[in-house]
């Protein structure tokens, strides 16, 4: 991986600001325009000592890492959301929260991020600045540093406005070993709040559906909440942020990896009434809608109350709920839901994309 300076140029000689309104191919060409863009938009905004050295790689002290745990956690994710800015967040906030969460659900303390952007020529510089500022603010609030990066500009049509990849490094505290294969019959399934907000927000923000809704994305960094859960319920078996595919995907993954059956109860599964209404109108199922600030938590039954109390005391877990349990003698790999109506149905993995129904 290259750093923000993928071409060696004397970065600090000039501190010129970017004056153009739009990103052009020149901003990725390796010349002065690129240097100005990188300095002005990225380096100055992320503003930290590791990045400021402008080496081709971030250099992190092994001793510092080792002092915080006994294993390195390393993850990467790419963010391609349309629209770039949506109620409750933007692609920058998403790119930081998503990768922070991917580290944190493994029990890791998130420390460092990379930021690689692919920009479609013609993108408004103002939009790019806003996104990077949002990344910086989110990273700072989450206590992580963006320490390396890369910028590419591609021809119009080669990507959609702006793609961001962030990789993340964290350290897993000693003794912590969470896994999707560790669920046991009797375990409780918890979530930290209402489900489907992000998916519904993005679908309505895209405007295809011509539906206005007051829903906002739940995009949030969950590491602090996770610390609270792990302190309160040290026997926690598994944590996972329920992003694409919704909680249905996570529950199926647990059921499959642990070879257990899982049962959830519709009346105990928290979903905002606006999201329910949105799904009713479009014929979608909220269990499959993406979340960006919600996690599924599997804890031994005797620790579920402690975990719930801890979650509810945290700002990101106020609406936490106990939605189901790992079944005794359930069919391995199967997730079922007791419906609000008293019936029972299977909650399977989604096939392809969820498409609105005709009528």
């Amino acid at each position: 991986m290259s750093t923000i300076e993928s071409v060696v140029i004397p970065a600090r000689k000039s501190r010129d600001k970017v004056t153009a309104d739009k990103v052009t191919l020149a901003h990725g060409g390796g010349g002065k325009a690129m240097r100005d863009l990188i300095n002005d938009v990225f380096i100055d905004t992320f503003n930290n000592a590791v990045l400021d050295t402008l080496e081709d790689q971030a250099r992190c002290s092994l001793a510092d890492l080792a002092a915080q745990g006994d294993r390195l956690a390393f993850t990467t994710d790419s963010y391609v959301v349309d629209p770039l800015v949506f109620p409750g967040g933007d692609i920058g906030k998403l790119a930081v929260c998503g990768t922070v969460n991917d580290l944190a659900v493994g029990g890791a303390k998130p420390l460092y991020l990379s930021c690689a952007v692919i920009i479609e020529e013609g993108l408004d510089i103002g939009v790019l600045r806003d996104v990077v500022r949002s990344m910086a603010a989110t990273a700072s609030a989450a206590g992580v540093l963006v320490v390396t990066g890369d910028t590419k500009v591609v021809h119009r049509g080669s990507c959609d406005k702006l793609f961001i990849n962030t990789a993340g490094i964290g350290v897993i505290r000693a003794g912590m070993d969470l896994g999707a294969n560790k669920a046991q019959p009797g375990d409780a399934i918890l979530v930290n709040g209402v489900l489907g907000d992000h998916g519904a927000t993005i679908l309505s923000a895209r405007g295809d559906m011509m539906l206005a809704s007051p829903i906002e994305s739940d995009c949030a960094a969950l590491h602090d909440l996770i610390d609270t859960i792990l302190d309160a319920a040290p026997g926690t078996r598994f944590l996972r942020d329920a992003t694409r595919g919704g909680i249905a995907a996570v529950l199926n993954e647990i059921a499959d990896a642990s070879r257990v059956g899982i049962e959830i109860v519709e009346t105990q599964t928290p979903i905002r009434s606006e999201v329910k209404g949105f799904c009713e109108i479009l014929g979608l199922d909220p269990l499959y809608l993406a979340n960006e600030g919600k996690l599924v938590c599997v804890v031994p039954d005797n620790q579920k109350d402690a975990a719930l109390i801890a979650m509810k005391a945290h700002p990101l877990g106020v609406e936490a709920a106990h939605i189901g349990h790992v079944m005794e003698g359930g069919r391995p790999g199967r997730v079922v839901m007791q419906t609000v109506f008293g019936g029972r149905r299977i909650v399977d993995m989604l096939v392809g994309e969820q498409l609105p129904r005709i009528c």
Partner: protein
Amino acid sequence: MKYVDEFRDPTKAKYLLREIGSLVEKIEVCKRRPLHIMEVCGGHTHSIFRYGIESMLPDGIELIHGPGCPVCVLPMGRVDDCVALAEMPGMIFTTFGDAMRVPGSKKSLLQAKADGADVRMVYSPLDALNLAKRNPDREVVFFGLGFETTMPSTALTVLQAHAEGVKNFSLFCNHITIIPTVKAVLDSPELQLDGFLGPGHVSMVIGNASYQFIAERYRRPVVIAGFEPLDVLQSIWMVLKQIAEGRAAVENQYNRIVPEDGNDVALNAIGEVFELREFFEWRGLGSIDHSGVRIRDAYATYDAERKFTVPAVKIADPKSCQCGEVLKGVIKPWDCKVFGKGCTPETPLGALMVSSEGACAAYYQYGDIEKVHQQKVEFKTGEFA
């Protein structure tokens, strides 16, 4: 959710289930075989699975999932025509979401989109008309699909395009009508049905009178049913009550939405724009007389079939597919030779596997098949509340 939760009340469901149970006890036929009740509409099929209604019903009742999923009954040849239209240079092809996955003989619209065609999902035909107005240099075709439920909005869109003089908008009309189809199902010799849940939203448009022949000529009870789970249970109860009392009539459970005479404005719009085709091809059911509509000559400029050349090749259903028998209720989805093997929601062979309203996809996705047809399980709500 107000006005929705009221129709999903488990306490009322238990009461209705008790009443259904005691009617089943009284009905003589149920001692020999289960009663076969067909829900005509795909929307009902969806609710039945979404709320696990089948798992709650007593053994004496079997639900047959009828032909009322417009996406499911679309023949392959028509999907091929869609793909051909979508792949024309400069074309924007617009469609309802769940029609995108229906397999054609070579590809679905979703695959055509991946291959470069400009296929866009819309929620209303008016969105397609607006697209046409925003893109005056492109042709925009709307894939008109569905029973009388969706017909009025398509008809009104054609009328609006005409009134506004929009030249680059046209309709690929695949609208179908419910009555000839129900008749075809009733005339099918291998069929044994004891009653019908009538389609709620179709009836909102066409009213109730059209179903009289089912009660009069075929002596089968029909109850026009709403789509919430309590609607479905109450409608099943109403069908059973007719059977228990030896009656066959058309009754309206969904009277909060369905007027006896239908909706004049909607019917007028349909009549203005559409006329019956001599016949229309259905997947699984074959050709059914007067079961589809086309655009009248007066609006021919909005008819994509006349504006553009489509292949219009009839493609036979895959031989291994038993969609037709499932549609008619002759076999259950899991009795089909390819169910869950060659035919899955990921790679559907038959259209019943494509839409979540299709009986096969519904069983595959929502139904606990072993449990549904081997043992009925009692569920207590709030078991660990």
